[in-house]
Structures are given as C-alpha cells and as structure tokens.
C-alpha cells in the first residue's frame, strides 16, 4: 500500500471510530476543515508511527508543519524515503 493510501485509510478509520464526518480528502483540503479534532490527529500520528515506523513531528529534523492534506502526505513521504 502506498504511503498516501495508508494515510487515507487511517483518516477514514479514525473518523469512523470518533464518529466524525470526514471531508473528501483532496490534496488542497485544509486539515482544519477536514472534520477531525485534535484527539483524532493524535491517534492518526500514533497509528502511522506503528504502520510506517516514523513520527515526523517528533523527529530532530526541521519540518514544515502541514496545512493541507497534501502537505501531510508529502511530510510522511519525505520521512519514509
């Protein structure tokens, strides 16, 4: 599964678990508008660390904090290389 697919699956699964309505995940969708709360994002970051072995937010490298869903995917793609 591609990194993008893994991330999309986690967004969808956590939205179901947290009973939240997820917006359509386009690259230019702002994360703030995607329908998830901060606990949902905290869970997604934890699950992605399990699935991909990286947590870009807790790394020593300087990162650009993602604003859109596309940024978020690219951040993980950059770390998984």
């Amino acid at each position, binding site marked *: 599964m591609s990194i993008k697919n893994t991330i999309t699956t986690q967004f969808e699964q956590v939205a179901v678990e947290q009973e939240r309505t997820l917006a359509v995940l386009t690259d230019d969708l702002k994360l703030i508008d995607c329908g998830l709360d901060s*606990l949902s994002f905290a*869970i997604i*970051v934890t699950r992605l660390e399990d699935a991909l072995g990286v947590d870009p937010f807790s790394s020593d490298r300087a990162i650009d904090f993602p604003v859109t869903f596309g940024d978020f995917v690219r951040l993980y793609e950059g770390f998984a290389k």
Partner: protein
Amino acid sequence: MPSKPRSLWESITAAGTPAGRLHGAGATVNLADLARGSSLGGRLEELRGRSVLLAVKDPLRAALAMLELDGVVSRMVLCPADLPSEHLAPVARNAAADACLGDAGDTSGGLDGVRTSIGVEPQLRAAQGQRVCSHATEWVLLTSGTTGVPKLVRHDLATLTDALTDTRPGPEPVVWGTFYDVRRYGGLQIFLRAVHLGSLVPAQPGEPVPAFLARARAAGLTHISGTPSHWRKVLMSGAAATITPRYVRLSGEIADQAVLDALHAAYPQAIIAHAFASTEAGVGFEVRDGLAGFPASLIDAPGARVRLTVTGDTLRIRSGGNAHGYLGEDASSFQLGSDGAVDTGDRVEERAGRYYFLGRQGGVINVGGLKVYPEEIEAVINSHPWVCMSLVHARHNPITGAIVVAEVVLADEGPDAERPASEALTRDLIHSCRQSLAAYKVPASIRIVPRLEVSASGKLVRPGA
C-alpha cells in the same frame, strides 16, 4: 491475638507445639524442631540486641531466620531476594546494621559497619539453651516499585499481626502457598498466618509456575496468595488445575472482574478473596463477594478496627497495622494525615454503592490535560474473552503531549474454537473500549505481544515506574 506474647516464637507456640512445616525447594523443616534447633549454626546469641540485615536469597532460610531473630535482635531488616546488590550498602547504612545474615557460603562482607556475617542453613543444629526473648524487635520492610534506594518501613510484631484476627489452628490443616517474597509485606502477612495456623510453601525466586504448583500440591496446599499478575500467569500456564485450593487470595494490584471471574471458573470450590494492603498502611480490607472493588459501607464504618476514609479521591487507612514510619534519612517523608491515617496513594471512585480503584496517584497519563489511569483501561481490555493480560502506558504525542497505547497478551483459549485474526481482535478491543470509556482513554494503538514483564514482587512492570 489470644494473649500478648512478646516474640513470634512465643506467639506461635502459645497454643502448644506447632504442627506445621516450612516447605523449601530442597528441604522441609518441622516448626516444632525449631524449639531446640537453630538455622544459624549456634550463633544466635552473637546477634542479641543488634541491628541485623537479613539478606538471604532463599525464602525458607528467610522464614527460619525471622522465627529465630524476633525477640532477640533489636532490629531486623528484611531484604527481598530481588534487592539490587548495589542497594545493600545504603540500606545497611540507613538501618545502622552491624550484622548480616546471608545464604550459607555467601559472605555479604564489605558492608561498612557490618562486623558479623552468618550463613543461614535449613539443616538445623542444636540451639544454645532456651530461647529467651529480651527485645521488642523492630521489623524493617523495604518499599518496592520505585526507582532508587528503597525506603525502610518500620513495623513491629504487633503492627504486622494486627490483621490476624484468629491465630488458633482449626481442625483441618492449613497449608499456605504464596507467590510473594515472604520478606515483602504481602508475603510476610502470609508467612505470619501460615506459621500460626499451619504450614507454608513459598515460591522460589524465578521458579516456573508449574513447578511451584506441583510442589504446593505435594505439600497439601489449601490456601494460596499472589498478585493479579501472578494469577494471570497461573491461568496462562496450563497448570492451574494442578492445585485445588479452598481459598485463593489476590492483593498487591487491582483485582479486576475478569481475573476474579477466571479464578472462580478455575477453582469453583474455593473462596476467591481480594485484599488491599500496603507496606506503609497495613491491611485495609478483604473482600470475598467475587466482585471487583469494595462495598462503600467499608468507608467511615463506625467502630471498625480498620478505619478507611476517602479524602479527595485517595484511600486512607488508620489501624493498628499502620507502620510506625520510615527509618533514617526518609523519616520526614512518611505520609501521615493530621488524623493519624496513612495516605495510600491509591485513587478510588464510588459507583452505585461500591468503590473501584482507579490507579496510583503517580501513574496518571496526561492526554491533552485530561487524566487517564492505565488500570481503568486495562480492566476494560482484560474483560475481553480473548485477553489474558494487558499493559496500558503513555506514548509521546506531538499533539496531545501523550496518548494512551496498550500491549495485550492473548489467551490460548477463548469463546470460539479458533482465535480471530490479530487485526480483527484489536479492532474489537478498540470497539469495546469505545463502548465503556471516554474517547481520550481509548488506546490509539493496541499491540499484541507474546508476554508482559512481571517484577519479582509480582507486579506488572510499568514503564517509568
């Protein structure tokens, strides 16, 4: 206690010659033989009035030494088998110990101030004359579960036997088994019951569960105690049916409904009791109704021998079993309220006439400012039919600071012939957590692991504890 005997030996012989035995892994000693025999190679008198470090590894030797030392030495310091060797020197210094008892052949020499080292042997030799009680011995127990050098908790025979309401042997022999180290509070309580009422079979350090249960069965085990973690190991060992106890006791950790139910199913003939005790506070209560938690009627019960109160949401205990305090440099840190009650540091919550334990004060996980007690979540996970035991802990999280994650050991047998796939099980576990817990308490990640580490004192090893 029937009267007020001065020493432990006088107490257990008050009703006549004791009929019980101490069953070690390699030797069995008749308690009656201690009347004229000694495990100290005839050197007990050298220790009279002194501060003695009891640092044997073998529980049988420890039991023999405790029986001989009480009433003779001024202070005995009970070092558990798992005490890290580098802690021996600070403990000896803090207790002003000038003598040390070790396993025979082991000379725990090199300790500052220790002038006498004696090996304890299970082969008794003739004692020097009559056993004379000359001192009200101070018993010093070590705290567990914290990093660093343990604190030294001061007790005496009266505080330690406060919870023993009846010490007369009954018509049927009682043989106590325990997974605990007899030098820690929980195990010491079992040792004291056993020598008053019958016999004792203590588990050896590191002894496999099936081997211990086989030894206990051969000794005629009737009563047995351990932590919920010990009991989960028994239930997972495939050897639970080796024993048919009349009484099963859990203490030292929170007994959740799942482990109580599993023990009822494994031992339908037995009383399943869970007790609350701590080294500092003594024994709080014992509950025998098979339900997790304890009846709210125990709190502030008028006229009770043990006075339980809840201040804030913390359980406090005042009784004759309370320790006298800490010894040496930690003396000022003993948590005693203005009413003389000991703060247990255990948080409780009342729901429909019953109190449930939430967890330890220090074990709280902070998820975005909200408090989470790992034990509350473990109780929910453990109630799943395919789960044997679980550990909930914090993982660093860039958004909420910390988040709750869980590791789970699965049971070999469950409600269906075939165990569901791991992925389906973790989904189901998250689903059941969501049913009964607030969203921030639901583990973000559940990992299935082959085993979880349990410490030598029988408690689940918690990261950072």
